[in-house]
């Protein structure tokens, strides 16, 4: 087996499957070639279609590909559509309903019609075994004969997969091991044991996470098997599979621990964003505290944070109401994307989303029968998406259909015509997303103004600058493969394996032989999955808390373990996250080891080709607030209450004759002043008035807001 630590001259291919399209990025000899093909029912077919298309474009034989990395939605789809394996659960007597009760909260406070999501394993296939472990160890041993008898009952329910989760198995897995081992001998289906999936306390979350693993296991196993066969037929190497933790793993590892593949596509996008921001000599990261990544797709947008070059991770994820507590890149989804439908609600406010026009019929401008005005239709009317642009691959833009849908919305909302509706949609979508981004950053203790925004996805770079301005963020980075960034991220993702275990130990001042031993075991487990253990580095961390608290902060841990250092680091982390630290005793709750084999992002050198200036057209740039008056006939500018004079400069809507550039034809170092529109195959970037930009080495764009209100000549400047 090859390792993931590839030399710079390796030919690498990344394939990310989305709901509608399968994206491909191919790096060869400093060039980056991308492709987009329709996603197929059996995703492996589309994956191979995409690879062949990209290889043709790059003039590379599939057999010459050195590394093939892949992100699939097979497991998350099985989970969302409740279409996974017929699964049985075995648990401690008295507790078979834990999976269904959950934390006994209901999903919505005020909605009397709310439903709890159905448990992955119905009560009829939840079995109890007589045994008991407590934090002090095994209190009642399990009887293997009883388990063999139980196996007969389980077999009668014809399960395709089994999960075993016994109380306190995170601390003492003896009974769980016996039950899982006996069932593996007696039954002809895979068995997931909770302490192997997630050796952490809180029985509901561990059981639910292990149940997800069992539920998607046969599905992923079959899929990866098919993909390996197809890849071999085409002369490709065996695929690396993306995990939600932000790293790749080899196919066999993922087949036995598939829970890690849930939500891996968005994680790849965040890795791609981080790699782009770091991957240029013109990188201005020193000026930021970190990056906010903003991926605006068809139905929703994904937001996450990158700090110190690393995607922020969480162990608190929930998917469709099911907790999945393995480490994941921390991605928050907000309900506005290009296909989001605009509507007027019962109180007369203009709203955007969460309903989406989807891919079929899609936005009105697809000309495929859609009549609802969407964000994409607004972007057509504003002039961001040109009449010649290729939408979602092959479609032509139907400007008239877009304007008609916007006109109808305008009439309903009492706005003056299609243009006003378009500006309104653009602003409201931005306001909704700004609120979500503020919430994500503030909740984690950061000030968004100290971050740069990395915008990607088909629609992200159209909204990014206006969105950034509304949050007082001055810098935006638009990666070159903005339309296929998750595929690009697959070329750069490290190989990563996590292991963790709950210990709950009060920290002393010095060495802790017991914890040192636990870490040794965790490292062994993390390295066991690594393709080349000798090439791997291992990081240790501990989730700590003040004694008596019920939430933890993760801090790095030195080797050998030193309680005093960990305690100090925890206090620092507490100070930085919450603004204060206390002199209370500290407890290490869960120990973590992460094995990483680093990969460097493929060296991409942007080479411009073709004519840069494509066109000039009239483009509208909406200001931050609606066009309407406050009803008293006064504009904000002459508001007598407003003595500060700031509102003088409040930009209303500006309509400008705007150059349209072919982004791929802009050379490295080229400076731009807004307004400008930059088109490329899968994405369009907008530089509004008041913003300028530069093309960086790798072809990514750095956009910067010019200081407002300065004299012309003194402020901004730059070449035009």
């Amino acid at each position: 087996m090859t390792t993931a630590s590839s030399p710079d001259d390796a030919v690498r291919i990344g394939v990310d499957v989305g709901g509608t399209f399968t994206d491909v990025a191919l790096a060869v000899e400093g060039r980056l070639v991308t492709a987009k093909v329709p996603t197929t029912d059996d995703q492996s077919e589309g994956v191979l279609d995409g690879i062949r298309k990209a290889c043709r474009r790059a003039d590379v034989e599939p057999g010459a590909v050195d590394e093939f990395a892949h992100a699939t939605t097979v497991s998350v789809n099985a989970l969302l559509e409740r279409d996974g394996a017929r699964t049985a659960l075995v648990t401690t007597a008295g507790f078979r309903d834990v999976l269904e009760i959950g934390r006994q909260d209901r999903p919505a406070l005020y909605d009397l019609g709310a439903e709890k999501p159905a448990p992955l394993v119905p009560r009829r296939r939840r079995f109890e075994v007589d045994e008991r472990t407590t934090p002090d160890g095994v209190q009642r041993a399990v009887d293997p004969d009883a388990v063999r008898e139980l196996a007969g009952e389980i077999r009668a329910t014809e399960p395709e997969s089994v999960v075993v989760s016994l109380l306190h198995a995170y601390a003492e897995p003896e009974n769980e091991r016996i039950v899982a081992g006996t069932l593996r001998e007696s039954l002809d289906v895979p068995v997931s044991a909770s302490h192997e999936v997630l050796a952490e306390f809180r029985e509901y979350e561990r059981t639910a996470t292990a149940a997800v693993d069992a539920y998607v296991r046969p599905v992923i196993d079959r899929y990866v098997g098919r993909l390996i066969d197809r890849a071999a037929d085409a002369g490709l190497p065996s695929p690396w599979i993306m995990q939600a933790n932000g790293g790749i793993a080899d196919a066999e590892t993922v087949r036995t621990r598939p829970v890690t593949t849930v939500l891996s596509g968005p994680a790849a996008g965040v890795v791609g964003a981080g790699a782009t921001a770091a991957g240029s000599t013109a990188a201005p990261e020193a000026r930021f505290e970190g990056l906010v990544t903003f991926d605006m797709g068809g139905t929703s947008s994904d937001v996450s944070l990158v700090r110190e070059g690393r995607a922020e991770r969480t162990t608190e994820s929930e998917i469709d109401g099911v907790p999945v507590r393995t480490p994941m890149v921390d991605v928050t989804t907000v309900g506005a994307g290009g296909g989001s439908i605009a509507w007027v609600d019962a109180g007369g406010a203009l709203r955007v989303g969460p309903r989406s026009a989807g891919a079929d019929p899609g936005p009105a401008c697809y000309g495929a029968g859609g009549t609802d005005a969407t964000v994409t239709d607004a972007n057509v009317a504003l002039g961001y998406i040109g009449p010649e642009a290729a939408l979602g691959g092959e479609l032509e833009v139907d400007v008239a259909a877009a304007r008609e849908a916007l006109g109808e919305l305008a009439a309903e909302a009492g706005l003056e015509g299609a243009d006003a509706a378009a500006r309104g949609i653009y602003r409201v979508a931005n306001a909704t997303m700004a609120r979500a981004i503020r919430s994500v950053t503030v909740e984690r203790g950061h000030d968004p103004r100290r971050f740069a925004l990395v915008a990607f996805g088909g629609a992200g770079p159209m909204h990014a600058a206006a969105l950034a301005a509304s949050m007082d963020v001055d810098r935006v980075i638009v990666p070159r493969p903005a339309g296929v960034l998750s595929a690009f991220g697959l070329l750069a993702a490290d190989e990563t394996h996590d292991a963790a275990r709950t210990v709950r130990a009060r920290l002393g001042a010095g060495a802790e032989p017991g914890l040192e031993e636990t870490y040794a075991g965790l490292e062994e487990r993390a390295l066991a999955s690594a393709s080349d253990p000798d090439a791997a580095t291992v990081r240790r961390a501990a989730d700590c808390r003040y004694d008596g608290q019920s939430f933890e902060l993760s801090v790095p841990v030195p080797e050998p373990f030193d309680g005093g250092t960990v305690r100090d680091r925890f206090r620092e982390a507490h100070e930085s996250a919450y603004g204060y630290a206390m002199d209370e005793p500290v407890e290490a709750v869960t120990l973590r080891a992460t094995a990483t084999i680093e990969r460097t992002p493929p060296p991409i050198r942007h080479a411009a080709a073709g004519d840069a200036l494509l066109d000039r057209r009239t483009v509208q740039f909406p200001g931050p607030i609606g066009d309407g008056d406050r009803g008293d006939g006064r504009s904000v500018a002459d508001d007598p209450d407003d003595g500060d004079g700031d509102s003088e400069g409040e930009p209303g809507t500006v309509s400008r004759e705007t150059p349209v550039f072919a982004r791929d034809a802009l050379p490295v170092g080229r400076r731009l002043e807004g307004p400008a529109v930059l088109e490329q195959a899968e994405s369009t970037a907008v530089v509004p008035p008041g913003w300028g930009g530069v093309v960086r080495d790798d072809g990514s764009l750095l956009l910067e807001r010019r200081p407002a209100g300065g004299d012309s000549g003194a402020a901004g400047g730059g070449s035009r």
Partner: protein
Amino acid sequence: MSEIDPVTLEILRNQLESVAEEMGQTLIRSAYSPNIKERRDCSTALFDADGRMIAQAEHIPVHLGAMPEAVEVVRERDPAPGDVFVLNDPFAGGTHLPDVTMVSPLSRNGGSGESDPEGGESGAIVGYAVSRAHHADVGGTTPGSMPAGAREIYQEGLRIPPIRLVDGGRLREDVLELVLANVRNPDERRADLRAQLAANERAGERLSALFAEHGSGRVLSAFDAVVDYSRKRVEREIAELPDGTYEATDVLEGDGVTDEDVEIAAAVTVDGPSLSVDFAGTAPQVPGNLNAPRSVAKSAVYFVVRCVTDPEIPPNHGCYEPVSIRVPEGTLLNPRQPAAVVGGNVETSQRVTDVVFAALSRAAPDRVPAQSQGTMNNLIVGGRDGSFTYYETIGGGFGARADGDGMDGVQVGMTNTLNTPVEALEAAYPIRVDRYALRENSGGMGRHRGGLGLERAITVATDATVSLLTERRRHAPRGVEGGSPGSTGRNVIDGEEVPSKVTRDVPAGTTITVSTPGGGGHGDPERRDTDAVAADRLDGKHDWKTDRDD
């Protein structure tokens, strides 16, 4: 007066709500105690200069009606920007003592009132930031400040009338010291109080940024616009209900001192777009601690209104403008001081909710489910040696709905807090959980089945004192439209059934089993889908035997 265009309305609504949201995040992030940080037993809100709530980040429904009263009492005390008032007095803007509220008058330049370049008018109050959090202890006779046997408020903890904790921008250390001298774990309290101050400060910063960005004229008219927006939407939905007066009564099963039923009566009048609730006929205040200050009844009514209207309508003053409430003084729901009140928040509030729902179900039978378990099943276990206190509330059956079964084993009504994981509990306390399961056959039968109750059995490993504060042990959650009632709950200590409210000293090895009520059924059981009956039997959730006599 507030003719803002639909785009500006939506943008400013988002921005104002984001101020309240950010306050909540600041509070949760910088608080120390799990009760605020993990259970999120706190709320934050932004009010305008007239004391109207503009935006709320809500976590806890019982705070809904109480926050405006807190602003009201502060407005009577000559507040100025730069002040921060603190209060918890249930008879002056509070609900029960553990809920501590901070109210900050704000100027357009933030909270400080200083450094106003223009002087004069812009130092005026433009709004109030309010944060409320449940503190783990505010003194009194028992740790946790929820003493079961209290007969007057003085036993329940430190009572704080609305006073300035910050006066003209200066923290009054003497006031803080007084508060901290009267509570257990003063360091934790200091951190939590500081978190509330930080939340209010954040509101001041964000609001002044909005004033700077949009100009005060536009922000102030946005205040009007968002209130009008919610009011219009709520009024439209109330107007859809048939006019008339709808009455209902229900009872609490004793006040902890006696076992007598205590009646709660409500008459709900729908008159066009407005709705009023009169609690005349409700029993006089009781000697025990189930009295509930007026704001609890208000919260319960607001909660019900939010449930029967579109839950997506942004919660602000506009939602409650069409709603009026009358509660006669000296009753269970508007007691005179020095009544003990700490149980009013947890159990009385649930019953008020039931009564108002029952009355409204006569106006809108399709919108209101059959009755849910109607109790929080409060279980408190304390070590006799004082070494630990374990407090838990237990979920139960949700009432069946017109279009589906009730949820099994969930928190209902005005609470939605999480359980304590067995693996956390057993590591922290000398307690073993023997069983935590759905309670079979406990949901009321009907075309749609009531949700199942839960069964939680624990065994103590040391001598302990067990307190149960529960309801619906005699009077079952009712079914509607021909549905049968859910099962009543049961409390059992070592095989012996005990009353709904009890405090017992028990020896090590004692098992306490709490079986919580099921939800009522909805519609004729004969009309139940046969597949649904088969599924219930296969899953062992309900056997659908009609001759059941338990």
